[in-house]
């Protein structure tokens, strides 16, 4: 009996929590489907009377969101691939070789993970200008390595540590070199971890606002997050359009997460739980 009561209570609590979690997403969509006139009605209508996709069309075509979306995609994908590849190499080195400076270097990488972006953004303007990379996508990818590479290394090390060393030995007996062991044995066996790490790096890069606000100035380099943040600061805000923009900006993260969520959740939690 008491157990039943507990389940009822937990169900009710989760129901409430689901409303808290999901309502903002629903409201974004409902608002984006309204005309501006209807969005400004007091009190709000719960459902669009004349649902329209105009806001999405305007954002995607007239307001350049197609370009912003392209910029965000290219930058985030490059960052994700680069940081998980370099991170995986380093993780393999830390995991499999008795490095004298190993602990020191791991500590170094962990510490770099703590440094706030605002400690670095100032000099970046001058650094990238000197290299001719200010206001380029490449410049942003370099900057995003500061967020993504440290944690990618740590996350990958957790996964590579869990691949049994006996398999390395077996591959070596079969004539594999160090790189061969890494590419043919260790990496395939830590694939879920690699997927989780790459996705996490992608989400971090995609969601950034600080760096894109400081390292770009031309319209052709704007990313989705920057576009959304700029719009909300304008004097006059068209809310259905802004909500459509927010949905466009959130969609890749949502879709990729839902597609890969099994590996992603495993990957996020593996490091925290073991040991």
């Amino acid at each position, binding site marked *: 009996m008491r157990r039943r009561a*507990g*389940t009822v209570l937990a*169900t009710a609590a989760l129901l409430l929590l*689901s409303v808290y*979690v999901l309502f*903002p*997403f629903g*409201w*974004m969509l409902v608002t984006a489907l309204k005309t501006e006139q209807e*969005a*400004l009605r*007091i009190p709000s209508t719960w459902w669009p009377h004349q649902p329209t996709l105009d806001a999405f069309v305007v954002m995607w075509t007239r307001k350049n969101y197609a370009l912003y979306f392209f910029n965000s995609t290219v930058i985030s994908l490059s960052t994700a691939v680069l940081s998980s590849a*370099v*991170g995986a*190499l*380093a993780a393999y*080195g*830390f995991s499999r*070789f*008795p*490095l004298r400076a190993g602990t020191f*270097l791991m500590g170094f*990488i*962990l510490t*770099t*993970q*703590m*440094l*706030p972006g*605002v*400690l670095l953004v*100032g*000099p*970046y303007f001058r650094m990238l200008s000197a290299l001719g990379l200010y206001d380029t996508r490449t410049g942003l990818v*370099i900057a995003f*390595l*500061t967020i993504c*590479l*440290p944690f990618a290394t740590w996350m990958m090390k957790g996964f590579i*540590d869990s691949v049994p060393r006996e398999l390395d030995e077996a591959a070596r007996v079969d004539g594999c070199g160090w790189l061969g062991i*890494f590419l043919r044995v260790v990496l395939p066996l830590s694939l879920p971890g690699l997927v989780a790490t790459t996705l996490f790096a992608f989400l971090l890069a995609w*969601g950034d*606002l600080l760096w894109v606000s400081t390292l770009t100035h031309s319209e052709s380099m704007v990313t989705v997050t920057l576009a959304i*943040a700029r719009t*909300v600061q304008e004097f006059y805000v068209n*809310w259905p359009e*802004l*909500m459509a923009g927010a949905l466009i*900006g*959130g969609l890749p*993260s*949502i879709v990729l*997460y839902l597609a890969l*969520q099994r590996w992603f*959740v495993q990957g996020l*939690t593996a*490091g*925290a*739980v073991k*040991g």
Partner: protein
Amino acid sequence: MHGVSRAATGWIGPRRALRLREPAVGYLFVAPAVVLLIAVLVYPALTTLRLSVTLPGGQLGVQHYGQLLSDPLFWQVVRQTAAFVVASVSAHLLLGLGAALAVAGTVPARGLFRVVALLPWVVPDVVAGIVWKWILNPLYGVLNDLLMAGRLVDQPLEWLTHPSLAPLSLILANVWRGFPFVMVILLAGLQSIPQDLYEAASLDGAGSWARFRFVTLPGLRKVLVVALALDTIWEVRRFGLVQAMTGGGPGTLTEVLSTQVFKQYFQFYRFEYASAMAVAMTVLLLAVSLPYVRMIMQEE
């Protein structure tokens, strides 16, 4: 793992001979990451540090820090950041723990909830900021509609411009954004607690509170520390949500350290002062995360 193989091979003798050239190869694997981090991260960090002690004439001195420490705005922003972080992180932990305990039980559709609940954490924090800004809009916002319809207030609340409501609104949005991560981590922690511990405790006559207190909480200790540390580090650095939702206002009442350094640097062009503030923020952040770093490194 390392310990086991060392013990098995009696580590100094045969293993050393076998792997004489290993370290060099190992450093080759590690080098790209370390070199990149030095170039893209350590170098700019040191540049900021140098800038923070560079005086107008070009000589070195700590005057910017003196100026910083005697600036009431700096201390106000430190207090606001601390309040924002403490409130956000404690709410994340409480709500995350509650949700994890509920989901770990025999609730219908708990698998679905677990997947869906992480969505707010997955989307950019700018998106979180503006959707809450819209919900909390004083004139057209749906929250005021609901409160008025339920006769809980008789006039619309100024969620984002009222001096005492604006910080709360930021936290409300940030709790929405951040608790799911803690829930997912704690849920994995709960599932790693062996079931027979609970059975043994029940046999010893432990009630549900005692089981929670003496089995669940100790079993969650490590994941709680990890969640607390990561969440604190992330929330101290939070930028996009604040920037999109309030921009630091009304006045400077919701400024946090990230947004304030950003403004000092890129709006007021006080490069040296902004650098000093960024260094101070980093010192605070490192001090807060030091126990975590030590715990992780000891495990290594």
